[in-house]
């Protein structure tokens, strides 16, 4: 379970998160919606441990462990997985090389043995097949020359492979056509389990038609301003975020 | 240092004699001139074993030194200026020089555009004007032998101070029209005060048929939050050996945009030495060079990023016809404190003539790790496929070539903001192409 308490974050003197509180239980799918600039992506980066952000106050606990004291790789080993909005290209580094290095680094950190190469290849192939991923994608350098949709699929493939306990999907639907959205959503849905929580960050409701959340949070001005069930997403879709902007003006 | 013992060439001896006889009549501090000449004389004219002059061997090119030009008569001045055509379409404050001497009468000192102050250098040197302290803004340029010669012999020039937004461009019009070969040395200093903006135009013309030897230095001390547009044209005569230096020291958050367009001179070397001395400054230095016959055109450039977050773009285009030789030497220096530098330098050359030659030396010298620097250099002929495509659409070969060359040079010229100046330069390209046989 993830608990965020009174999180205050700034970057270059600009306050982005303003006393944010959020709890995501085990097995829960929580969605965070909000207008552009409300701090959604910052939240995902801060949970994963990107540098550049100054944490002024608050804490983030994953199953009782204080994430803020950990390096990004330690957080990953503890179960945090961030599906990037813009996955990075790493020239010259083969996709399989990268996947194996990441998987084994995490297994090692958890005290597990390294995976044998045949087992590893079996796992990757199975996950790739589920995501209808062409085999040659795995032979190329990581994300280099991939289309937007291919990059997102690669993120979900990594999620399936690394078996994290807390997954953040940062605007995973951006840049996806309807088929890619279906494939990616099915990939995510197949990973739903009582032991795994999801934080789905999105601007639009359409992703939530495919990945149905248990709870929906509305984020604005660096904090959660409203929480409800999945119907809240529909309401936002109908009325937009205008209500929240007025609030700000008032 | 081994060269110290070398025999002086006749040209070097002539320079020493010229300095000896001129030093008493030249205005200003005799000591600093003597010092500059001594430094020059120690190494002599640079030759191909001096790395910076590897491709432009001045020892071999400067066999004879022309006499330094005297002050022209009123008639000579009139004729010379009548013959000058450069940027005639551009409305600007005219600051003319004939045979290296500032034409004082041409400037109405009481009606200068608002924000412009102008002081003749000859007088300033004689009275020890306070702006003289701003001379030589780029310390390491003083090691350059061409610059040292200018410091030794500079006889005239102007100092300009710019404060505020000045709409009217200032046009430095250099014309050398002496009947027989002369040498000139002019120096222009421009101080651009914080928050100012202005446009500086330079044209360099000389008569054909004489081995003129101009050596011009323009140096600028550019303040914070300024915007300077600089347009330079070399339309020197067919036997002129033209040496020139642009030295820049630029403050923070400034925008500086410079271009040098070359069609003239038998041999030319234009040196740009720039220091970006304040954060978030944006420098662009472009060049468009067209060479034919046996012309030799050298563009040399050193940009030192001396502060955080600066951006520099250098784009040099060279078209070489007949048996001409083009040279590009560019260097971006990033010391370790100039993090977040973004520097990109590109030199592209088109060889039109069978025996044309191009030498490219783009360098990066980098000590900071958080930077993005790149350089590129290409050298080749016109794209056969493009030529074919245009010809298949009905263009004769010559026209198709011209079109492609215009497009090629256009990429460097399009950054000129002053519309009339840009048109004039496009016109220069067109007439150069028309004159191709």
């Amino acid at each position, binding site marked *: 379970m993830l608990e965020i308490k009174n999180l205050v974050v700034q970057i270059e003197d600009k306050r982005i998160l303003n006393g944010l509180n959020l709890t995501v239980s085990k097995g829960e799918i929580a969605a965070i919606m909000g207008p552009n600039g409300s701090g959604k992506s910052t939240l995902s980066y801060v949970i*994963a*441990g*990107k540098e550049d952000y100054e944490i002024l106050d608050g804490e983030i606990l994953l199953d009782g462990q204080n994430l803020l004291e950990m*390096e*990004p*790789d330690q*957080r*990953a*080993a503890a179960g945090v*997985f*961030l599906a*990037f909005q813009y996955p*990075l290209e*790493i*020239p*010259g*580094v083969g996709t399989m*090389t*990268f996947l*194996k*290095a*990441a*998987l*084994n*680094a*995490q297994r090692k950190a958890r005290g597990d043995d390294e995976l044998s*190469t045949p087992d590893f290849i079996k796992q990757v192939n199975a996950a790739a097949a589920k995501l209808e991923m062409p085999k040659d994608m795995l032979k190329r350098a990581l994300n280099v020359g991939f289309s937007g949709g291919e990059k997102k699929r690669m993120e979900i493939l*990594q999620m399936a492979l690394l078996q994290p306990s807390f997954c953040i999907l940062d605007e995973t639907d951006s840049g996806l056509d309807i088929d890619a959205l279906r494939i990616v959503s099915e990939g995510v849905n197949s990973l739903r389990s009582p032991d795994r929580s999801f934080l789905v960050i999105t601007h639009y409701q359409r992703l939530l038609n495919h990945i149905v959340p248990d709870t929906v949070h509305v984020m604005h001005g660096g904090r959660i301003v409203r929480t409800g069930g999945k119907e809240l997403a529909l309401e936002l879709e109908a009325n937009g975020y205008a209500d929240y902007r007025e609030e700000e003006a008032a | 240092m081994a060269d110290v013992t070398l025999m002086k060439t006749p040209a070097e001896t002539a320079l020493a004699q010229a300095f000896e006889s001129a030093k008493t009549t030249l205005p200003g501090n005799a000591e600093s001139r003597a010092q500059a000449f001594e430094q020059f004389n120690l190494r002599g004219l640079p030759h191909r074993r001096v*790395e910076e002059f590897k491709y432009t061997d001045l020892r071999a090119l400067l066999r004879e030194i022309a006499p330094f030009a005297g002050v022209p008569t009123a008639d000579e001045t009139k004729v010379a200026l009548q013959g000058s055509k450069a940027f005639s379409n551009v409305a600007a404050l005219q600051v003319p020089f004939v045979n290296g001497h500032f034409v004082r009468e041409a400037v109405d000192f009481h009606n200068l555009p608002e924000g412009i102050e102008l002081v003749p250098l000859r007088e300033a040197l004689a009275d020890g004007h306070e702006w003289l302290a701003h001379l030589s803004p780029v310390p390491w340029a003083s090691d350059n032998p061409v610059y040292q010669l200018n410091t030794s012999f500079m006889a005239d020039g102007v100092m300009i101070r710019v404060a505020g937004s000045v709409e009217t461009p200032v046009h430095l019009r250099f014309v050398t029209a002496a009947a027989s070969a002369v040498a000139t040395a002019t120096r222009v200093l421009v101080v651009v005060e914080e928050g100012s903006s202005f446009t500086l135009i330079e044209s360099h013309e000389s008569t054909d048929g004489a081995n003129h030897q101009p050596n011009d230095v323009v140096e600028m001390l550019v303040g914070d939050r300024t915007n300077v547009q600089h347009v330079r044209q070399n339309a020197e005569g067919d036997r002129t050996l033209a040496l020139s230096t642009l030295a820049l020291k630029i403050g923070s958050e400034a925008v500086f945009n410079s271009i040098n367009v070359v069609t003239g001179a038998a041999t030319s070397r234009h040196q740009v030495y720039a220091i970006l001395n304040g954060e978030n400054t944006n420098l662009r230095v472009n060049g468009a060079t067209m060479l034919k016959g046996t012309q030799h055109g050298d563009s040399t450039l050193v940009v030192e990023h001396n502060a955080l977050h600066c951006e520099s773009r250098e784009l040099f285009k060279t078209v070489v016809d007949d048996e001409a030789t083009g040279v590009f030497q560019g260097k971006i220096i990033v010391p*370790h404190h100039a*993090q977040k530098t973004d520097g990109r330098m590109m030199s592209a050359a088109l*060889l*039109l*003539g*069978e*025996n044309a*030659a*191009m*030498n*490219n*030396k*783009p*360098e*990066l010298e*980098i*000590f*900071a*790790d*958080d*930077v*993005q*620097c*790149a*350089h*590129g*250099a*290409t*050298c*080749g*002929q016109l794209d056969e496929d493009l030529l074919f495509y245009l010809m298949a659409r009905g263009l004769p070969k010559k026209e198709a070539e011209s079109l492609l060359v215009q497009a090629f040079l256009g990429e460097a010229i399009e950054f000129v903001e002053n519309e009339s100046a840009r048109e004039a330069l496009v016109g220069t390209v067109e007439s150069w192409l028309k004159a191709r046989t």
Partner: protein
Amino acid sequence: MPAVQETIDQVRSIDVDQYKYGFETEVEMEKAPKGLSEDVIRFISARKAEPEWMLQWRLDAYKRWLTMKEPTWARVSYDKIDYNDIYYYAAPKKNPAPKSLDEVDPEILKTYEKLGIPLREQEILAGVEPQSRVAVDAVFDSVSVATTFKEELKKAGVIFMPISEAIREYPDLVRQYLGSVVPVTDNFFATLNSAVFTDGSFVYVPPGVRCPMELSTYFRINEKNTGQFERTLIIADKGSYVSYLEGCTAPKRDENQLHAAVVELIALDDAEIKYSTVQNWYPGDAEGRGGIYNFVTKRGDCRGRNSVITWTQVETGSAITWKYPSCILRGDNSRGEFYSIAVSNGMQQVDSGTKMIHLGKNTTSRIISKGIAAGKSDNTYRGLVSAHRKATGARNFTNCDSLLIGNQCGAHTVPYIESKNASAVFEHEATTSKISEDQMFYCQQRGLSEEEATALIVNGFVKDVLQQLPMEFAVEAQKLISISLEGSVG
């Protein structure tokens, strides 16, 4: 894939002391008197039982050398070398010219064992698939101590032997080609080498023969105050092919040692030579004490039509590297390639690159250079691409990228691109950057530590070049790069 894992393990397991080849071997040595003189040259020539013409060649070089000045144009700085404070010849006392491995001093055999260089053919044959066999010439200070697979190569017509032996056994071949690519007067260090070279390899591949195995020379400097001056000459006759590998190590010492080699390659019509180097001389300690001065002249002559010469180098060692493996593209349609990885850390200084000199028609060249600077090191790429008047249709593509790790190192690019032929097409691109923070974060988010992520990204950066190396070397090179960068992160 396994290589990456190995790299990571290697990086992990290593502490401060990274140079694992720094041990010394106790062998009794015979040395020439210290310093350089005609007598010393006569001594070397006599020890090698050389014919008179060879001695004369050396003496001429020495006279010429006395009139020359050390070059200063490279971006390296070092205290003046006292050329009279060096031993120019050092050979194991016990049987300096062994006929078989059984005669070689066991201490020396142990040295090569420790370095992982197999010298016993039976052992090589027992363990490994036949196709990845490598014939080795092992050079220990001034002499070749063993050459493997000589007999088998001879059956294929390939001559592979120490050059000192070749001078005696194939004087006509040696005389015809020695100094024909790097003239005696070429440069200060090449001329010095011509006067005092001691050993090195000689390869001749006859017309139409594809050399049946990789050839390799392993250079080891062991003795104190000794310079190593090897000379390698490789001739690929018409239509032949040979791939040659070179490796080098030296013990750790506080004083600098000089290594001034000359390598000449000659490819005749339709012949191809691949020359790969993994250079791992002792780089000196963290303060810049000790280490090898690696001043090397390597040049290939694509003398014949359609000939190909490929240089691949992985440079991780040496205090100073001054090295420009070059190609003279004389034959029409010939091709030259240069692939380089130069890693510098600590106080190392690297000034390296290539020259591609296009003389023939339709000649092509390709340069891929990856420089990685860390610590307080300086890493310079210096290269020349030139097309002469008659080089119609010449083509060059150059890509040189530099990566800086840390804020106290320097990366420099100094290319010279000279075209005297309008139909020549040259393209050059260069970049300098650091490892992107975003890439690092992405890797760390997937669970890789900072060092693992750096190793991974650097390996990606150099991959284009590593792919050019034979398999066994590629793995070793990848390990070396990671080891060289150890301690540069964080």
